[in-house]
């Protein structure tokens, strides 16, 4: 199989036209000493039907969410995707286009991203949003870099309630860039206000809190806002479960300066965690400091003044500003942003709220059923959205063996990231779980003997 259309005869005719004898002659600039003198050691080419068989076989080795019941969340959420989303998102004019540098022939993608930016503003309540970032973790890093400013060192205060993977990524960047990260432990599943208050000083460039946090608990953002803003710190909220915004106060309502997070679960396949879809929303004052692409509305030059869309404020970006750019982002996640846009359009004002209610009610039903079982108790008393932590009578690894025997995937074993939580499991219930699924989970838990 090959996607090279020109035949050897075509290629020979082209070579003759440019006056060269063979394809080999085109490689004259590559010195002999660096030439690969053997074929690459790769498996031989496969015809399409054979390749499909191979990949279908590999895919079949994976248990997927249409074949097993799962209560895994922990930063990646299973939300139902209306059929119209993939049908529209995968139209090849979107899929096979590049970054819209030529706006006259890219109005479709530009307008879709302008709509994405608007919808991110609508759900967060903030003033502006960018065209997407790689994922929630790198979006958080970009927000912190914005808060610290160019060449800045500064210190970032972050709650241990923020997704552990996000914090790991932040530490990686802090190490390379030279800023410091101060972590505030949680109490009863949330960031304790006193400790946070002590951690924040005039040297604090940013305060980072996740809502709902990694344990699913709802942070007291109103109180945190006044702590964050008592100095000059930028208040950054991280959101990994955007369905929560149908029910919970928006970042604008609790006074966040920047809202960043992960929104791949809106309309995009989970795909083992990537490609993901990071977003960033902000107050107006940060407009010219934002990382990544921005689409703006404008009009045609000259006479007719018809509306159109362009990539704008490009003097922030690497291809213009080079080493002084606000970020090194070039490729982002446009196609996923298109998926999320169509998803939000399909849900609409009413559906978006209903999604939040479904997650909330189903999770609380599961919570009530599980905590009614002997030996199982809630680890925290703080209010939660659609994830909660349960202390089991056995270790989570024993629990996982039971789940495997029962042909299901349980929750997330918290001791992976939080030493001391050996018996604690984080369960997530989205609208895709039925009462029957939840009751099955409860039955499996009931059978586990301490």
């Amino acid at each position, binding site marked *: 199989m090959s996607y090279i259309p020109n035949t050897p005869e075509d290629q020979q005719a082209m070579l003759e036209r440019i006056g060269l004898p063979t394809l080999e002659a085109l490689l004259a600039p590559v010195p002999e000493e*660096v030439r690969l003198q053997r074929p690459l050691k790769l498996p031989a080419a496969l015809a399409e039907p054979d390749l499909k068989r191979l990949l279908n076989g590999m895919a079949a080795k994976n248990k997927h969410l249409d074949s097993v019941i799962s209560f895994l969340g922990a930063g990646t959420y299973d939300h139902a995707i209306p059929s119209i989303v993939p049908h529209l998102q995968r139209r090849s004019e979107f899929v096979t286009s590049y970054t819209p540098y030529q706006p006259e022939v890219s109005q479709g993608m530009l307008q879709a991203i302008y709509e994405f930016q608007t919808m991110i503003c609508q759900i967060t309540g903030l003033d502006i949003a960018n065209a997407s970032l790689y994922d929630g973790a*790198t979006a958080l890093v970009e927000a912190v870099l914005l808060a610290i400013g160019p060449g800045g060192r500064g210190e970032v205060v972050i709650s241990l309630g923020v997704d552990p993977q996000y914090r790991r990524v932040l530490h990686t960047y802090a190490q390379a860039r030279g800023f410091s990260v101060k972590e505030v432990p949680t109490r009863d599943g949330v960031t304790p206000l006193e400790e946070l208050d002590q951690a924040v000083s005039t040297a604090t460039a940013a305060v980072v809190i996740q809502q709902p946090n990694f344990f699913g608990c709802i942070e007291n953002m109103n109180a945190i806002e006044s702590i964050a803003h008592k100095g000059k710190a930028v208040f950054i909220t991280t959101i990994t479960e955007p369905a929560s915004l149908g029910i919970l106060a928006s970042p604008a309502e609790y006074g966040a300066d920047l809202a960043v997070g992960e929104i791949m679960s809106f309309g995009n396949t989970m795909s083992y965690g990537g490609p993901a879809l990071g977003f960033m929303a902000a107050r107006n004052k940060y407009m010219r400091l934002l990382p990544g692409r921005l689409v703006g509305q404008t009009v045609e030059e000259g006479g007719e003044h018809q509306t159109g869309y362009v990539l704008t404020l490009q003097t922030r970006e690497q291809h213009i500003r080079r080493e002084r750019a606000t970020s090194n982002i070039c490729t982002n996640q446009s196609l996923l942003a298109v998926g999320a846009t169509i998803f939000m359009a399909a849900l609409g004002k009413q559906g978006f709220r209903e999604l939040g209610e479904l997650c909330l009610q189903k999770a609380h039903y599961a919570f009530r059923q599980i905590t009614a079982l002997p030996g199982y108790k809630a680890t925290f008393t703080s209010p939660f959205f659609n994830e909660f932590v349960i202390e089991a009578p056995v270790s989570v690894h024993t629990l996982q063996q039971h789940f495997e025997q029962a042909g299901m995937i349980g929750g997330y074993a918290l001791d992976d990231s939080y030493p001391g939580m050996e018996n604690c499991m984080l369960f997530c219930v989205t609208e895709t779980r039925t009462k029957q699924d939840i009751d099955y989970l409860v039955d499996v838990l009931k059978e586990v003997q301490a």
Partner: protein
Amino acid sequence: MSVEKLIFEKGAPGRRAATMAAMDVPTEPLESMIPAAMLRKEPAPLPEVSEIEVVRHYTHLSQRNFGVDTGFYPLGSCTMKYNPKINEDMAVLPGFARIHPLQPESSVQGAIQLIYELEQYLAEISGMARVTLQPSAGAHGELTGLMLIKAYHQSQGQGHRNIVLIPDNAHGTNPASATLADYKSVEVKTDPGTGGIDVNHLQALLEGNAANIAAIMLTNPNTLGLFDSKVVEIAQLVHEAGGQLYYDGANANAVLGITRPGDMGFDVVHFNLHKTCSTPHGGGGPGSGPIGVKEHLVPFLPGPLPAKGDQGYYWQDPGSQSIGKVRANMGNFGVLVRAYTYIRTYGPDGLLHVAQSAILNANYLKHELASDYTIAYPQTCQHEFVATAERQKEESGVTALDVAKRLLDFGMMAPTIYFPLIVHEALMIEPTETETRETLDYFVSVMKQIAEESRTNPEIVKTAPHTTVVGRLDQALAARKPNLRWHPGQEVTH
């Protein structure tokens, strides 16, 4: 000329497109679960549209967009080759698309296997010891690579090295990534004779900053489409000065099976799978930017890394020297499935033929355009070359931008323009291997027509495009009065 209203201007209160799952559990009052102060006060004002409206709206938007499936896309350094459909089908198999990143290893054996094998393929193609598939895009890979270099220098007691050398024709992401890694960029000049690195200038920079050179970032073939035949000498000079060599893989389509960054002397390489391995660019992403490294840098790689044992495939934590994670989860897996499919489609002989055919197509176009456009460096190019509109500008004031806009009228995408920065009125052309000779000939005939129009009727070029849904847009207004989102009451104008 036509306008498509925004989705927010369509629909009516009460309309909706998606139906939600049933509320099949007993419910409790909202206030009993969430304290009132934490509830949302204003509902998110998302659109209220029916399914048919959503479908028509985004179908219309797709029709207002140009992709490789629409026509020729000679965008230099972007490698806009055909995106095979089988790759898309494989990526959405439920066994790949519907798996959670935190599932137990035993339940995702096929996924880890694919990542494990793809790492081996990319290591072989690049001549590197190991490859991490974690970085999300090329620029993310660059940053990761520089972090690895920094961690390595620190481990050698060389943490003071703070300079990254970057050629004056480099991609803008190179200096931006260097800044993010807290490095200072210093520019290396191009030798105007060869189009390669000015080795004398490089030597002077190395001598002047010997103790502080952390790395050099090179693209080879470079952004002029030229293979720098002094690469071995350059590698030797930089290594002698204690620096590391970083290979920007944006142009790797030209070297598949011909030469390998590892054999040229590079220590770190990134791939753009969305260029070289045919994964679609999606209007600006997702990409994937794996990083390959030589043995001495392996301990610093981000983790976890895939491994194979008696019990099957598993994720192995890196050692204590690892730089840590550079993103959540394991990388852009959906993109990796496509790249894996691509490499298995071609095999070793096929990939070599990909590179050779890409180089032939570029040289053919360069040859055919030379009578009408100045070619910045007329020697044999690799996968791309840089033509210029200098002649046209001098004769009639027609610029590279004008030529680019006029091309759109003929159903083709424009080349990359005004890049690399060292060439005036640059038109950077990369045809890729997936175009027919007829398409290339059509492009040549249109370019010749535009050259002719520039002489006889320059206005038609200067006011192009004429056939697109909108004409040239007011970029200055967009930047002066930024409008980055729709507000109620705001209407599009016709």
